[in-house]
């Protein structure tokens, strides 16, 4: 039963939660507003005092801003999942003759779509603020691929609190450290300016390699070996989070 209906059921359920997104556009706006505000703050207030060794600070910081956008966007995935469990509709779906895994997959795909919309909004604002990229189509596709992978990884991470949280605040609170992580990375300032231990952390956490790779791709420069570290982080988080989320899910429904 599950194999035959999986794609159809996932499509129907994804359509449903996309309606949730399109009917509460504030979730997309809220997701985009914080990163846009940070972008304005850093470019027009703080950025003048930051020496990145490049001539355009907006080009320098956009990759980090995009990761912050994703980190705040996936909080809504946990939120929507939590509401489905609270409201009983999750139980209704599970008591129906459908492919059960579509219920989770629909939330994951919805998260992907909603985050991509927010990312497009942020990039548009960045373009207005003077962001320019000399990247060709392959580099843009590579950057998009990394952003998609990062979104999927964080989305599966968000499924865990979505399934386990006791309160609505708990469901989204996990995203705060993720939003904060880019600040201790190469996203806003070069890591070379940081004191020893902080620098060590900044250089060895996932955000830095992802940010550096995106920055190189946008600038049309060679990405070097950093792209492999970035991909390894994204895939690693994705696999671990997805396995953990499915384990939590199985315990939840047994």
């Amino acid at each position, binding site marked *: 039963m599950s194999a035959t209906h999986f794609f159809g059921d996932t499509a*129907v*359920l994804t359509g449903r939660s996309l309606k949730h997104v399109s009917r509460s556009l504030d979730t997309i706006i809220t997701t985009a507003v914080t990163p846009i505000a940070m972008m304005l703050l850093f470019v027009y207030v703080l950025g003048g005092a930051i020496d990145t060794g490049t001539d355009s600070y907006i080009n320098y910081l956009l990759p980090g801003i995009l990761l912050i956008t994703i980190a705040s966007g996936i909080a809504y995935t946990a939120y929507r999942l939590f509401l489905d469990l609270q409201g009983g*509709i999750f*139980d209704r779906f599970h008591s129906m*003759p459908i492919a059960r895994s579509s219920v989770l997959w629909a939330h994951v795909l919805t998260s992907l779509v909603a985050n991509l919309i927010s990312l497009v909004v942020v990039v548009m604002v960045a373009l207005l603020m003077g962001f320019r990229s000399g990247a060709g189509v392959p580099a843009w596709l590579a950057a998009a691929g990394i952003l998609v992978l990062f979104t999927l990884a964080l989305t599966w991470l968000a499924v865990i609190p979505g399934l386990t949280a006791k309160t609505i605040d708990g469901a989204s609170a996990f995203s705060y450290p993720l939003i904060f992580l880019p600040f201790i990375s190469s996203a806003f300032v070069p890591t070379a300016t940081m004191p020893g231990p902080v620098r060590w952390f900044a250089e060895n956490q996932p955000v830095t390699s992802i940010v550096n790779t995106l920055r190189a791709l946008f600038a049309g420069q060679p990405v070097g070996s950093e792209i492999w570290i970035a991909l390894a982080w994204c895939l690693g988080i994705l696999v671990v989070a997805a396995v953990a989320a499915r384990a939590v899910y199985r315990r939840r429904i047994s």
Partner: protein
Amino acid sequence: MTTQAAISVQSLHKSFGDLAVLRGVDFEVAPGSIFALLGSNGAGKTTVIKILCTLLKADGGSAEVNGFDVATQPGDVRASLSLTGQFAAVDEVLSGRENLVLVARLRHLPDAARLAERLLQRFALTDAADRRVATYSGGMRRRLDIAMSLIGDPPVIFLDEPTTGLDPQGRLEVWQAVRELAVGGTTVLLTTQYLDEAEQLADRIAILHDGRVLVNGTLAELKQLLPPAQVEYVEKQPTLEDVFLALVGGTVETGEQP
């Protein structure tokens, strides 16, 4: 057995940690009947329902729905039933019509739109069909919830405390809907903590207490368990419910005196 039971539960056990919620529950429900599982909060009613709907696994004992074992044939069990959970499990962001179409699609039925239209009419929701469910009253939500459960004509329907939290008007509307279900041949298992609800609706009533079924019988049989009735002369005052319904102009028949 000459007629197969629509629901059959044998020595069902379930514990959450140290707490034994079900300690050997047995009952059977005849096809096309309304069976009420009566019990106070925490008696284990919802746990029984969840096991029967394959949302929980039992620790011991067995249960069958429509002839399928809940543990070994969960897919067939799910195809045989509909669950109306304790809180109206409707999508508040969608309209009533969209909710019905959603369920029809998930049940892989052709012509979901026409099916939705028919159910909206049947449950007097046509006027509100394209409004978001968040704007519905409690009774309307429950009616929509039950309408969603009817899609695909499942032979067995579970109603977990269908009238909890409803105003008297909403309660009468739900009762009406449940009676119509049974007339159509659907087997209904409902849980309730309201004695009058069981009395009004059920062909058979089981009282669940401390994880066991204390008694199981028709209303008449249960009444015989009590001391014989005493004859007293009391002035018949209107009940508060009569007053309420007279004032707000309740039009749904109570179905009391036939």
